[in-house]
């Protein structure tokens, strides 16, 4: 019997806001421990929460970007459990009236891991449905020292958005693709920086297995708090194998909550069903219900960006780019914007795309501190190359100078004497000189070694200090050598 996995995700995203969800403390990573705290986020007696509208707007915007329906009325609830990193011993979350319901995310091929992009699952263009998106407060961070533990409450009360998917996923690669896609959408909406290093995206996964072709779900187990997309893939791979092995050897899966040890590559049980919490959710009497209609929703709609999928399609259509080029540009919205600005000052957008994606990006990586090049100069440079004024080596040379001291590329080319010689009469003279100076190569070529022409081309390039149009020299040499 063959088995398939059924996977659902709960994705926690730290929202990018100036202040925390219910108080005025700064929402900042990496500050001195317990430096961004106040009576509210420390849960002191008498302190009260006041919702941060920016976090609510960003959650609504996420819902709009993912095709969710936005509830006209949402509310906050208290989720009760004791833990030292949670100052009130209840977490303000949303239980039965979250801000966003349903929606879905399409999985594009290039969101899959590179080694899986050719597989059928990547090509299927699957849509993963969402159950809900809600807003809650994050907890503090515990540090376990030698003889005691310490807690940093800077993170306590920062806004955390939870995206819950249907159990629509069947492979670790799909989970990987979903997270990659979600991350891209969130960056588009400027909802979160989604920086994994800073724990801005954390994920709980629910997994069960069942024989292929059956409908009923198997018993699920949950792996909590995975903090990178690749860890999700590894943990799922391990857990699916474990469950299939268990079931196919006659065992049963016991409902359990697990933790993933990425270094050891294994899951560690946290608690079983019997130990499951009763969170005793009830509406938070300190907070009024949220009315999203009107100002909040209008503001979210105003911020609605062009989505990654739409942008890719438009880049392909408008500029004739390949899907790959469009995807790379779309994955970096500021770069895409830069490209489109440059494209307005060129007649050759496709060579411009190559210039941006290969040479410009490479140079920018070498020297991240360089001065930004005005986009129109890049467009002009693409024209100079495409229309034969500069060859590709010269183009790179101009670009390197352009990046240091931005000036019109035509000026740079002129100063440096970098103009491609395409004039046939001039080039023919150089070619004749090459032929008479290299009798051996000429003989080789005539004896059938066609590669020998390269030595002659090299001679001409050297004589012209690299300015000759290589295509033209090649044509000229061939016709001269074939002269009877």
């Amino acid at each position, binding site marked *: 019997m063959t088995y398939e996995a059924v996977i659902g995700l709960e994705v926690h995203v730290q929202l990018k806001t100036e202040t925390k969800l219910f108080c005025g403390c700064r929402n900042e990573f990496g500050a001195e421990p317990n430096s961004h705290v106040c*009576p509210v986020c*420390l*849960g*002191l*007696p*008498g*302190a*009260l*929460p*006041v*919702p941060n509208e920016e976090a609510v707007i960003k959650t609504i915007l996420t819902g709009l970007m993912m095709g969710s329906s936005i509830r006209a009325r949402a509310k906050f609830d*208290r989720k*009760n459990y*004791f833990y*030292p990193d949670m*100052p*009130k*011993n*209840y977490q303000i979350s949303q239980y039965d009236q979250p801000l966003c319901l349903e929606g879905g995310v399409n999985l594009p091929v290039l969101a899959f891991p590179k080694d899986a992009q050719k597989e059928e699952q990547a090509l299927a263009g699957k849509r993963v449905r969402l159950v809900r998106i809600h807003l809650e407060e994050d907890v503090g961070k515990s540090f376990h020292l030698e003889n005691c533990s310490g807690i940093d409450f800077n993170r306590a009360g920062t806004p955390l958005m939870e995206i819950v998917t249907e159990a629509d996923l069947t492979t670790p690669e799909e989970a990987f693709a979903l997270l990659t896609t979600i991350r891209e959408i969130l960056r588009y909406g400027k909802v979160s920086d989604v920086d994994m290093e800073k724990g801005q995206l954390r994920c709980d996964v629910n997994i069960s297995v069942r024989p292929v072709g059956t409908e009923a779900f198997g018993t699920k187990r949950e792996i909590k708090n995975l903090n990178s997309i690749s860890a999700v893939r590894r943990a799922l791979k391990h857990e699916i194998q474990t469950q299939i092995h268990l079931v196919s050897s006659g065992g049963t899966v016991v409902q359990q909550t697990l933790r993933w040890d990425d270094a050891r590559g294994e899951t560690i049980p946290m608690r079983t069903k019997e130990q499951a919490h*009763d969170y*005793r*959710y*009830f509406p938070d*009497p*300190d*907070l*009024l219900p949220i009315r999203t209609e009107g100002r909040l929703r209008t503001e979210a709609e105003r911020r609605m960006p062009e989505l990654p999928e739409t942008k890719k399609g438009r880049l392909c259509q408008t500029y004739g780019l390949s899907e790959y080029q469009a995807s790379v540009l779309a994955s970096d919205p500021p770069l895409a914007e830069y490209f489109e600005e440059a494209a307005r000052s060129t007649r050759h957008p496709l060579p411009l795309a190559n210039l941006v994606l290969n040479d410009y990006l490479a140079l920018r990586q070498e020297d991240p501190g360089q001065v930004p090049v005005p986009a129109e100069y890049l467009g002009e440079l693409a024209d100079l190359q495409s229309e034969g004024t500069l060859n590709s080596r010269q183009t790179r040379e101009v670009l390197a100078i352009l990046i240091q001291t931005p000036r019109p590329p035509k000026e740079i080319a002129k100063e440096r004497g970098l103009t491609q010689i395409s004039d046939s009469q001039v080039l023919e003279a150089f070619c004749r000189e090459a032929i008479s100076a290299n009798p051996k190569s000429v003989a080789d070529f005539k004896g059938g070694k066609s590669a020998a022409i390269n030595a002659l081309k090299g001679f001409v390039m050297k004589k012209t200090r690299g300015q000759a149009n290589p295509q033209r020299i090649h044509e000229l040499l061939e016709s001269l050598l074939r002269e009877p």
Partner: protein
Amino acid sequence: MSFAFSTIQELRKQLLAKEVHPKELVESLLDRISSVDSRIKAYNYLHPERALEAAEKADVSLPLGGVPIAVKDLISVRGEPCTCSSRLLEGYIAPYDATVIERLRGAGAILLGRTNMDEFAMGSSTENSAWGVTRNPWDLSRVPGGSSGGSAAAVAAHEAIAALGSDTGGSIRQPAAFCGCVGLKPTYGRVSRYGLTAFASSLDQIGPLTKTVADAALLLEIIAGEDSRDNTCEPEPAPSFSAKLGEEIRGMTLGVPKEYFVSGIDPEVEAAMQKAIAHLEGLGATLREISLPHTSYSIATYYLVATAEASANLARFDGMRYGRRAPGCDDLLETYGRTRDEGFGREVKRRILLGTYSLSSGYYDAYYLRAQKVRMRIREDFLTAFRDCQAIVTPTSPMPAFRLGERTEDPLQMYLADIFTIAVNLAGLCAISVPCGFTQSGLPIGLQIIGPMWKEETVLQVGYAYEQSTNWHTRRPSLGQG
């Protein structure tokens, strides 16, 4: 005669006329406290030096400039303890001012000290205090009521000019009635709760305990109004509550709920009530019988809603970040368990357990959710009643102050002490208790005037008209008077 016996209004005149300096005033209160508080025990905490220092610098041109105010020990005052009369908060020093405290300071008031209460405001007698009981100034063998018993006793014994209390089910009005002073529970949302240690968030309100209705209006004016730090606070500035004081009540219709006069009312309380009704009629008001059909459900509803909220509100008291932590625990669970076991008193534990139970999975619909539905019905009862009257009059409490220890063994009997006040909180209304007589043995009796939401002006107007045409409020307990 000592300035301690004055009202805010009287003192304001004297302060402005420079007939008294704020420092003299504070000194005479401190004298009074030192002569009577060993018998009453109204205060948990006093800081004479700080009060005298503030009096020295007081700006008498401000609305409460130089007037000392006592504060119930569950409202946060920067740099001072806020124990909520609980062992669990022993050692906690509040690092911030509640909104009402900011406003008192802004109005020039002098913070005198912190008054005793039932632990975390849970109780009706101030017997549930970790720091010992407060006694009724009219009879030291009796309770002052609760939970704001310390505030009421301090005002009644003239150890304070006025005080702040908090009212979740009657905790301002019932002790005001027991101690013979004025207690006002504002409309839910009228006064910011920021800085008020929460018992039941959807019911709690801070309000004044004073010697006169006019003082209650004055104090409410200072503390009420919008506050961006409390999401449930009205988003409007407060009106002038003194505006209608002195306007006659002729032509006004007052409702008398028939369900409040069935059984269990002390005969002396009932007699005083009938006289008060006759008196109000004499002032030209029309008294009319009304019905509040869901009255009998209010205690059960209250004890589900309030305890559910309390079970979450009190979860934060775990000894981790502040307060008293049980020493010598080996692990986290033991620390939680022992800290809360040693820190909370019996009544608090009882209510946490009850609230936790009613929110538990499988019970939520039958208890908490149903209680919320009944709460809506109770609210509708009042909405309907207020179509036919401008205010409702009832006794504040079915009995006068009971003896210390009389009801501590029977929680249900204790809960019944709040039977006339609880529905007001469930419905979010405003109400005032004013003195309306004394029993044969000299115990005060209170008249409750209930108004629709945001109609404090009306209850103050009726209360003022009654007070000014009677002299109950001028009596003083014999205790150490002189």
